[in-house]
C-alpha cells in the first residue's frame, strides 16, 4: 500500500462525490431538511394532549445516525461506475493495489461523514438543540456507522451496476434504515418478532449509540455501538474480499 496513492485516489473520490449536485443535496442538505421537518412535526405533536413528542436532542441524534446511509449510495455508485466504464480496468493495470483502492474509496466517505455530522448538529442548534462539546463525541460515534454504510455501498458496487446500486442503496436501504431505526416507529409498539429483527440489525443500535453520546449516557454507547462495529467490520471484510476476487477473476 502507498500513502501517496491512497491520498491521490481519495482526493479524486472526494471530487467525484462532491461535484455531483444530487450527492451534495442528499449528503448535506437532506439531513438538515429532514431534521427541520421532523422538529416542526414533533413540536406540533408535543402540543397535543396526552401525546409524547421526541426531544430535539434525540431527534438530532437520530438524524445524525441516519444521514450516513447516503454514503452507501455515493460509494456504491462510484465504484459501480468505475467498474463498468473501464476506468477501474485502467487503474488495475497501474501500480494501485487492492488496499489502495479500498482506502481510497473509504477514507473520503468518513471525511464526508464528519462534514455531514457537523452540518446536522449545527443546523440542530438553529432548531432549538443546545449545542455543546458533546457533539464532538457524537461525531466520533457516527464514524463506525459511516464505515458500515460505506462498506455496504462498496459491496454493492463490486457486484451491481450503478443503476442497481441506486435501487438497493438509494431506495431500499435508505427506507429500511429510516423505518428500522426506531425513530418513526418506536420499538415499544412493535410486535415481539419485529422487535427481535430490529434488534438484530444495526440501524436501531446506531441511533441509540448516538442518542447516548449526545445525551451524556456514556455507559450506554458501547452496548449499542459494538453491534454497529461488528456489522461494519463484516461488511468491510466482505467488500475487500469481493473486490479482490473480482479483480483476480477478470
Amino acid at each position, binding site marked *: 500500500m502507498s500513502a*501517496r496513492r491512497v491520498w491521490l*485516489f481519495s482526493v*479524486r473520490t472526494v471530487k467525484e462525490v462532491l*461535484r455531483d449536485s444530487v450527492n451534495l443535496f442528499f449528503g448535506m442538505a437532506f439531513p438538515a431538511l429532514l431534521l427541520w421537518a421532523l422538529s416542526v412535526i414533533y413540536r406540533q405533536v408535543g402540543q397535543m394532549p396526552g401525546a409524547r413528542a421526541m426531544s430535539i436532542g434525540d431527534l438530532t441524534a437520530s438524524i445524525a445516525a441516519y444521514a450516513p446511509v447516503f454514503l452507501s449510495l455515493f460509494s456504491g455508485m462510484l465504484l459501480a461506475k468505475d467498474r463498468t466504464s473501464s476506468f477501474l480496468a*485502467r487503474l488495475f*493495470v*497501474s501500480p494501485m*493495489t487492492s488496499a489502495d483502492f479500498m482506502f481510497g474509496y473509504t477514507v473520503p466517505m468518513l471525511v464526508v461523514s464528519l462534514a455531514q455530522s457537523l452540518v446536522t448538529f449545527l443546523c440542530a442548534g438553529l432548531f432549538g438543540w443546545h449545542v455543546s462539546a458533546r457533539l464532538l463525541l457524537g461525531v466520533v460515534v457516527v464514524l463506525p456507522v459511516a464505515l458500515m454504510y460505506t462498506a455496504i455501498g462498496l459491496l454493492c458496487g463490486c457486484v451491481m451496476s450503478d443503476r442497481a446500486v441506486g435501487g438497493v442503496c438509494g431506495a431500499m436501504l435508505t427506507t429500511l434504515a429510516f423505518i428500522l431505526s426506531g425513530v418513526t416507529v418506536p420499538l415499544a409498539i412493535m410486535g415481539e418478532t419485529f422487535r427481535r429483527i430490529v434488534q438484530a440489525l444495526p440501524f436501531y443500535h446506531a441511533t441509540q449509540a448516538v442518542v447516548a453520546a449526545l445525551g451524556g449516557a456514556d455507559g450506554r454507547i458501547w452496548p449499542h455501538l459494538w453491534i454497529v462495529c461488528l456489522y461494519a467490520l463484516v461488511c468491510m471484510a466482505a467488500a475487500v474480499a469481493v473486490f479482490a476476487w473480482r479483480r483476480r477473476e477478470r
Partner: protein
Amino acid sequence: MDAIRTVDLTKRYGDLVAVDHENITVAEGSLFALLGANGAGKTTTISMLTGLTRPTSGDAYLLGKSILKDGAWIRERINVAPQETAVAQNLTVRENLELIAGIYGQPHAKAVASARHVIDVFSLADVASRRASALSGGMRRRLSIAMGLITSPKILFLDEPTVGLDVFARRELWKVIASLKGSTTMLLTTHYLEEVETLADMVAIMVAGSVVATGTVEQLKEKTGASTLEDAFVALAGGAR
C-alpha cells in the same frame, strides 16, 4: 532484449479457447500490431499481458519479467489505452492526467509538468479545465490515450486507440505514436489496416485465438502474393476462418 515474449500463452473460458498457445516476440522500441477479426483474441491477449486477466496456461515475459510472478514490478513500467474510454468523469482533463501521473509515482511538480506537456501534444489546451463528462466523445478518447502516455511507459498497450477519432485526430495520434518508436515498445490492436501499414514494424494475424502469421507488412504481402495488406489479411485470416 525482447520487450514482450509470450510462451504458449493460453486463455480458456469454459469450452471457449480465447487465446491458444500464443507465441509472439516484440523487440524493444518497436511497434507490434495484432490484427484479427472481432473475437480473434487480440483484447484477451492485451488483458493477460497487462495483468487484467490471468492466463489459463503458459506465461509471458515483459522486459524479462514474468506476468505470473512479477506483476507489481511490471505494472510500474507499462500503461494502456483501453478499447473503451477510461477517464474519471467528474475530474477535469488536467486533473485526470495529474492523477494518473501521480499514481505511477511522479512527484507533484513533475506530474503537473507532464500534464502540461501531454495537453500540448494532444491539443487539449482549450479543454484542460473542463470536466471529462463535458467533453465530446472524440476529445474524451484523446484524453484517455493521453492518460496512457503521460507516465512515459516502457511498454504501451494500445487497444484500438483510434476508434471514435476523426481523421485529423487520428493522423495527429499517428504522429505521436511514430515519435515514441525507439523509446517505447507498443502493442497495437486495430481494425484500420492503413494504421498498421503506416506504423507497425511487425504484424501478427490472429484467427480464433491462434496466431496464423507473423511478419512485416511486406513479408505478409509476399507470403500471400497480395498487393495490399488488406488482401494479405483476407487471404490469411479468411482462409483460416
